């Protein structure tokens, strides 16, 4: 509270009690830190509610089976167990900044092994969405890839690998292009990749559906 008077923390520490009393009136601001903490403790509910189906995230008993089963845990900032503890502790920023959901390969090993049937993979999807919304991620490669994929699907109704690959690699892996070239060339000569997108007939219907879905999502978030 004393730091509000323009003094540093160190100066405040050496203030006599009387001096402190003097400056007290001007710092009678409404108490703030504690309610903020309580607000953050709603993070668990928020993540759980925004996950498809019944996430059962609240049921996590911190056994660590998930991290032990994870094929890509070595590349993660936090194992899923740690991440779930952070969510429960209300560490919003740290949890959303974690690269863990982006490294998750959706292999569902943890999901079938979890003794509490937590929908772990779907919680990861939720965290990705929340991180994008709050713009909290250190590396934009994965969010950009998802967004570009979705842009193509929303435009054509089908995925468009050639457009996706060129846009994505030019932006995020320009130096990888030479080593990718033989593969891309092989895919094109075998007609396993088309240079022109395919559009579904009902693209307008799909666009209407997605527009409505986004409105519904905005209301219920």
């Amino acid at each position, binding site marked *: 509270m004393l730091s509000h008077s323009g003094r540093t923390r160190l100066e405040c520490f050496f203030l006599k009690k009387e001096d402190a009393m003097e400056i007290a009136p001007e710092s009678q601001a409404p108490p703030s830190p504690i309610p903020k903490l309580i607000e953050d403790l709603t993070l668990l509910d928020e993540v759980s509610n925004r*996950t*498809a*189906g*019944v996430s059962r995230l609240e049921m996590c008993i911190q056994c660590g089976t998930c991290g032990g089963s994870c094929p*890509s845990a070595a*590349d993660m900032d936090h194992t899923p167990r740690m991440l779930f503890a952070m969510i429960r502790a209300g560490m919003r920023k740290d949890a959303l900044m974690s690269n863990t*959901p*982006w*490294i998750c*390969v*959706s*292999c*569902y*090993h943890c*999901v*079938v092994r979890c003794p509490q049937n937590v929908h772990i*993979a*779907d919680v990861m*999807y*939720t965290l*990705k*969405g929340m991180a*994008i919304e709050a713009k909290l991620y250190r590396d934009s490669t994965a969010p950009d*890839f*998802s*967004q570009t*994929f*979705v842009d193509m*699907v929303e435009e054509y*109704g*089908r*995925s468009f*690998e050639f457009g996706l*690959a060129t846009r994505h690699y030019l932006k*995020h892996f320009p130096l*990888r292009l030479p*080593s*990718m070239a033989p*593969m891309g060339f*092989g*895919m094109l*000569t*075998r007609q*396993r*990749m*088309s240079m022109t997108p395919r559009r*579904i*007939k*009902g693209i307008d*219907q*799909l666009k*209407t*559906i*997605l527009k*409505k*879905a*986004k409105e*519904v*999502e905005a209301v*219920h978030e």
Partner: protein
Amino acid sequence: MSKYLLYPGCSMETSARAYYDSLKAISGPVGLELEEIEDWNCCGATEYLGISLTPAYALISRNLALAAQQNHGKRAVVAPCSACYLNLAKADYYMREQPTLATHVNQALAAGGLSYTPGSLAIRHLLDVLIYDIGLDTIKSKVVRPLTGLRVAPYLGCMVPRPDYEKRWSDHEHPVELDLLLKALGAEVIDFPLKTHCCGGHMTQIGPETAFELIRRLIVSAEAHEADIMTTVCPMCQMNLDAYQGEANRYFGSAFKMPIVFFTQLMGVAFGLDPKDLGFGLELTSARKAMSRVGVETPEPPTSAPRPRKDSSLPMPKPLPTKADLAEKVEAAK
């Protein structure tokens, strides 16, 4: 004839063309009648779910709604692609588990004049239908060219046996369905310990180092078990192990040449069908050597000749004369 609605998915038309071609070729012989869902759209793969919830499930559910509309007494939708299968099954299951999700999705679908009642369709994977509806006996009876002596690593990947909402598979981590099918074809099936491990999924696009390590593990294990060839049920697994094997080799300084084909391609070979109609030759890591073990010659992969130089193209500096050219010139001058 068993009738099903088919949801092919985007990869079947492009990167997994071999899967679609071979599926069409074998469906007649085994008596599998597939009717494609009219004007289906992408399922969103593993990307849309990470962007936003309701739109992602509405995207998936448009397909379910279209299928239910087209459903002339056929209850099952068959998806050959793992990600498509999981997404369709997941949407159907979660809309039953959480009715508010179904309400939101149906609000969105209604804007496009569609609706879907969760649970009204059964979502099945192709392998599941072949094993449990068509049956191994029928498949065995069609085999005219058994794959004797071909050592095959059965590789399912993640999203078919897991999370398995309807409990259709024998096991989540070591299911035996694909092994049994390959044995019925006469192949020598290796006990592949990583049969449901991850191929890296979309990590080849966003975190290549993570993906290369997962690809390496699978190939090392298949090689250690002396497999001639790997076979899979998933377009993504095939793509990662086949097309990215070269890049993974460069990354690790390794020289793996492990071919991977779709299980329907091997079925076609065993049924005595022409390898050309089964999509052989489309793989980047050639399966020629492996298939020659069972006396099957697969088509050469397409090679393209260098483009002839156009005289009208931009002027380019001529290459410097070689020593031989100079010597010739000197000779001529003399």
